[in-house]
């Protein structure tokens, strides 16, 4: 077996089926997080029926997708959610689902505890209620903690606590670890993206260069005890490469299926530009294998402006979606390029093509968070 780095060349041309398939089951959500990747809120009347999703699961089984990551919206709001989960695990397709915890009652936790094939991920964006609720909404911290308590009491093994790292919570890294440990959970940290409503808060919430260095050092020290979904590969350019796949997996290793059956290149790219097809027009295996969008993503991509950078081999230009939604060229550096190359060259930001927001919130950044240009850019 070879080290992961040697597999990159194989991954670039795509796999027979995705490793990591995110399935957003509904756009309905009882929260309105300011950074929601899918701009969720209202259910979409065109959402696929139970029967259509069951047939989708059968297709996943046929091409041996090992597991799906179900999210939304809040997936547990769909009345057929638990039946779909049962159908998937009953057919050898494992389920990981992301939830705000509002439907994880003691009874439901006991049901989950007896299945080997279900993993639960509770979203939490602050280690304290004040930090969390500013982003996720009033009362959402308490809801998530209650869900973790219910899972722990039921004996559910190793749930995940999933945190999006922001300018306002990076100082809580150790607190997040302690919180996860307290409930027998594994901490999973992911990167804030300017996708969905995330673009509204990107400028005020994405980590400062100092915080990026702090996060990188913390992740290196934490090693495999903390999960990241391989989302911080742009930080590998700071020195020590992080564990996992240090490349963009969009359309090669990952993809997203949205509630109306649209298939996109990755969970951070819900935009017409990255739409590969729809499950009502074509089955999933055909879209994965043959869609021109995916075929294009699997072709070798030019290094562009990053070609002359000594860090290119470890960061590979960063996140496609982060560049796209901040108006940066796709063959140039990531907006959070740790060498400071991602600044000052952006064009207009693309208008969203999908939005189910119920009510747009105004997010007011904390006054004590530094926002002067010198904190944004090491070269300012």
């Amino acid at each position, binding site marked *: *077996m*070879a080290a*992961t780095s*040697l*597999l990159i060349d*194989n991954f670039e*041309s795509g*796999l*027979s*089926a995705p*490793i990591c398939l995110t399935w957003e089951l509904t756009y309905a959500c009882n929260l309105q997080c300011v950074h929601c990747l899918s701009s969720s809120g209202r259910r979409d009347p065109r959402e696929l029926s139970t029967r259509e999703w069951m047939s989708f699961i059968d297709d996943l089984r046929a091409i*041996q997708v*090992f*597991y799906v990551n179900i999210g939304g919206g809040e997936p547990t709001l769909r009345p057929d959610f638990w039946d779909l989960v049962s159908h998937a695990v009953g057919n*050898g397709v*494992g389920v990981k689902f992301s939830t705000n915890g509002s439907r994880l009652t003691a009874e439901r936790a006991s049901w989950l505890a007896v299945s*080997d*094939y279900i*993993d639960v991920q509770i979203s939490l964006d602050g280690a304290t209620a004040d930090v969390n609720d500013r982003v996720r909404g009033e009362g959402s911290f308490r809801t998530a903690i209650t869900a973790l308590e219910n899972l722990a009491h039921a004996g559910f093994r190793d749930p995940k606590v999933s945190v999006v790292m922001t300018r306002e919570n990076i100082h809580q890294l150790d607190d997040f670890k302690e919180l996860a440990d307290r409930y027998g959970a594994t901490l999973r940290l992911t990167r804030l993206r300017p996708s969905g409503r995330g673009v509204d808060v990107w400028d005020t919430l994405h980590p400062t260069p100092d915080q990026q260095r702090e996060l990188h050092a913390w992740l290196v020290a934490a090693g495999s005890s903390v999960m990241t979904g391989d989302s911080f590969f742009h930080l590998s350019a700071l020195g020590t490469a992080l564990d996992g796949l240090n490349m963009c997996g969009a359309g090669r290793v990952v993809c997203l299926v949205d509630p109306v059956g649209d298939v996109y290149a990755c969970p951070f790219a819900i935009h017409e530009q990255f739409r590969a097809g729809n499950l009502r027009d074509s089955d999933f295996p055909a879209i994965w294998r043959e869609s021109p969008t995916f075929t294009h993503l699997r072709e070798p991509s030019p290094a562009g402006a990053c070609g002359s950078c000594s860090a290119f081999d470890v960061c590979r230009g960063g996140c496609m979606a982060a560049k796209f939604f901040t108006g940066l060229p796709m063959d140039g550096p990531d907006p959070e390029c740790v060498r400071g190359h991602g600044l000052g060259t952006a064009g207009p930001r693309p208008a969203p093509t999908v939005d189910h927001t119920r009510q747009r919130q105004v997010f007011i950044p904390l006054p004590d968070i530094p926002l002067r240009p010198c904190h944004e850019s090491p070269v300012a």
Partner: protein
Amino acid sequence: MSTEVDRSGHLMLAPSVAMRPEGFGALLYDFHTRRLTFIKDSDLATLVSCLDGHSTLESARLRSGVPEHRASEMLQALANLEARGTLVRTARDA
């Protein structure tokens, strides 16, 4: 392949592990540990797919078509997979 290894039982994929062929070899997923394993060697992938828990490693190798000169290398790779819990050993045949 070593008959000493054969006598201690026969290898097969752990019941919690699923395997899928890929262009570079195979991808395996353990539903218990939720861990992915990559086999980046087509010969090894074919050999693992021929392990059925009751035939000897030598007969599995012959069925898989893996050339004899790679036998000791394969044995080491199988031991690594066993150490990871990807492969398990069934009880010795009577």
